[in-house]
């Protein structure tokens, strides 16, 4: 419907549950969503004539944050903090 056709940025905060319901949570749907997100990011920041450091640096920063989040448990242990 018209709600799922808008990009996620245009969906208002109050309509978020409704939008979540319309979403397709099967494997194909998830893969399609990931594909759409990647292609929109790619076409906006990387697939241009005169790009800059922004395109890849955002990806690297996201990777840093993600890996920090995954390793937080290990980093915050006292044994680790004392050993280094």
């Amino acid at each position, binding site marked *: 419907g018209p709600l799922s056709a808008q990009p996620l940025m245009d969906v208002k905060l109050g309509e978020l549950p409704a939008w979540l319901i319309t979403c397709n949570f099967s494997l194909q749907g998830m893969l399609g969503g990931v594909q759409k997100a990647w292609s929109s990011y790619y076409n906006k920041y990387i697939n*241009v*004539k005169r790009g*800059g450091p922004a395109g890849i640096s955002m990806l690297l920063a996201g990777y840093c944050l993600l890996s920090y989040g995954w390793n937080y448990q290990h*980093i*915050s242990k006292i044994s680790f903090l004392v050993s280094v």
Partner: protein
Amino acid sequence: VLHATRQLHTTQQRLAPLPPLPEKGGEVRHGLIPEEFFQFLYPKTGVTGPYVFGTGLLLYLLSKEIYVVNHETVAAICILSVIIYGVKKYGSAVADFADKLNEEKVAAALAVKNEAINSLETAIEEEKKEQWRAEGCSYLFDAKRNNVAMLLETNYRERLLTVYNEVKKRLDYQVAMQNLKRQKEQDHMIQWVEKSVVQSITPQQQKESIAKCILDLKALSKSAQAAV
């Protein structure tokens, strides 16, 4: 089940030529945060809003030990400073080099296209010339037709001459035959007349004629003697 009724192309713009790439990517401030974030906070908090938000977030993470300061922090600071220094110093050079590579690719493709256009144009010129030549064929065929007509005429005249000669020969033969026949008849008749005349001279007549001749000769000899 194949959804045959589903539209395969949802937008109009999938056809060639492809739309050109956008000149610049989305605006990003400090290389990490998209402009949209700043624009999103601008109506409520003005220009300094996102920076205050960032500072507050950083202090919160540090104070609550959500971000732990350890050896990795020092390493991250060193690496980031080196990276930023490198990008600031050599960024434009690398960008120019990449642009030059792109230019070369585009120029090569353009050269191929121009080459193809030129070759096709020369092909068109050649084709027109061939068409003009083909028009000249009609003159050639006229000349050939004249040649053939001439040959036929000559042949006809030769044969006419042969016919005339042959007919003349046959007619001459007939004429010669008639002449020969008349000649032979004449000769034969003369001979026959002579023979009959000779036969009709009796011996008596022969003696009388010989005596007459002798008398005539004597008379003549007398007159001759007298003349001498």
